[in-house]
């Protein structure tokens, strides 16, 4: 069972929900993996301590041109959908723009002269921590300046295998990195906040998940802070409200120091126990 914790809007509490849910499952003695798929800005490791057990570097292929064999015919440029190859036949110039390359292999197929080979370029790393004998944390972390975290996210989730209870802490938004995470999940928990921004972004996430035909429910974080429009929207559209985490400065203070609220604040432990029970039922 893979559960993605996601939201359209950033900063709604994905990491808060992911890390505390992980802690509750772990403390219940159940095997669990937490995968931080927000590889642009991974934060789970600040809340979960574990022993480093493995670091796997993730690479992508980048074309390399052999200018002795290249005839500057321009076919690779024509085949490249991402404008990552620039050919100027008049002055016999060819250049690969590494940042734009999507590693599709079209240029390799295009070249009839065997002038293109590939090299590997590091785009990030997956670091694995053992938290206890039954639970672990995988962190995906993209190199600063790399455009797409999608290959890294796919690799991190693939590595988790099947059969575990896995929590995928998703990146914000509704585009490629979000899709790469939620498409691997059996169920999605959307975290939102009760404000117009929260509601607007929730609607966009709901629309996306409906298109992907993924089952999902909603957790409202900072409940009581804004208005009731999110609750009304959920009721109108018959979307399950999984839990409400109240707005509480104590939560903000605990979070700011990297401390799990299920460790520091007794009153919220039960909330996460109940959330876990609800999610466990989704699996069966």
């Amino acid at each position, binding site marked *: 069972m893979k559960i993605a914790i996601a939201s359209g809007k950033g900063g709604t509490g994905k990491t808060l929900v992911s890390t505390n849910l992980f802690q509750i499952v772990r403390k219940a003695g159940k095997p669990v993996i937490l995968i931080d798929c*927000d590889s642009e800005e991974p934060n789970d490791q600040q809340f979960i301590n574990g022993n480093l057990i493995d670091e796997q570097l993730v690479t992508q292929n980048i074309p390399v041109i052999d200018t002795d064999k290249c005839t500057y015919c321009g076919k690779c440029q024509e085949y490249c959908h991402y404008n990552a190859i620039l050919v100027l036949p008049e002055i016999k110039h060819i250049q690969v723009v590494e940042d734009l390359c999507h590693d599709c292999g079209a240029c390799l197929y295009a070249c009839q002269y065997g002038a293109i080979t590939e090299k590997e370029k590091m785009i990030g790393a997956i670091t694995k921590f053992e938290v206890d004998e039954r639970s672990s944390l995988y962190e995906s972390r993209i190199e600063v300046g790399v455009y797409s975290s999608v290959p890294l996210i796919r690799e991190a989730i693939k590595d988790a295998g099947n059969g575990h209870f896995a929590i995928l802490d998703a990146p914000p938004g509704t585009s490629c990195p979000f899709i790469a995470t939620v498409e691997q999940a059996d169920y999605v928990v959307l975290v939102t906040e009760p404000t117009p921004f929260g509601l*607007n972004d929730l609607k966009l996430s709901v629309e996306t998940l409906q298109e992907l035909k993924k089952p999902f429910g909603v957790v409202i974080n900072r409940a009581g802070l804004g208005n009731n429009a999110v609750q009304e929207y959920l009721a109108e559209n018959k979307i399950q409200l999984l839990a409400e985490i109240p707005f509480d400065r104590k939560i903000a203070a605990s979070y700011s120091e*990297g401390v799990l609220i299920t460790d520091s604040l007794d009153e919220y432990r039960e909330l996460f126990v109940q959330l876990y029970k609800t999610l466990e039922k989704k699996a069966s």
Partner: protein
Amino acid sequence: MKEIVVLSGKGGTGKSSLSAALATLASKIIVADCDVDAANLHIVLHPENYREEVYVSGQKAVIDYDKCTDCGTCMDYCRFDAIRLENGKYLISETACDGCQLCERVCPAKAINMVEHDKSRWYAGDITNGKMIHARLAPGEDNSGKLVNIVREQAREAANEIGAELILIDGPPGIGCPAISSMTGADEVVLVTEPTQSGMHDLKRIVELAGQFRIHSSVVINKYDLNTRISDELEKWCQYMKIPVIGKIPFDRSIVDAMVNCQSIIDWAPDSDISNEIKLIWNKLICHETTRSI
């Protein structure tokens, strides 16, 4: 013409609330909402006289099963794991397909066609003191960086049209493709952070990115009083990195009240401490721009 981009790395630190307030303070401005995944600024700035345009985000491969001979060549070549064999039939996952067109090229039966994705939109509208551009990337479509570029191009055109000297860009969270596109070629980056361990970690990554682009950055610490110890740490780190901290905004429910009432904090509570602090931030940004351009 100056382009100032508001970014944060971490989401939810208050980019859009700050952008809305800064936009309200300008006499003439173009606002570009470059969070094309989850645009929110229009909720507060109420653009009117909308112009809506289609954005073709890319193409996706589609198999014509009348022609398909089930040879599997397409699956062999696809590097995005977008093609799978299910019950003897090759299927293309729309979300995994990157639109590279290689399968169309390698198919010996010419059974694959590329179909344009045209569900994304961008919008331009009038606001009281200028114009705003925003966009909506359709669910699951990619090339958000390209859409950001279109929003920015449109913003520049609108600035020329009405003679605005300033473009304010509200950026997306993260440090990937849309954040990079929002930052490229901008004159100044304002980084909004919050006093949490996560905020600090994420700030360091976005500062590194801004450094790669050699863009002048400054920092605003939002909700600074939620953890004054980490706020102090943030300030010290910024000092060490020679990044000016141009404002510290306290946490106050009025900023949420303003949002709930779909107004910027400047319109909602013009004389509040928060509004006064944001006016100072605005002055520092504008003055800094003048001193730098002299």
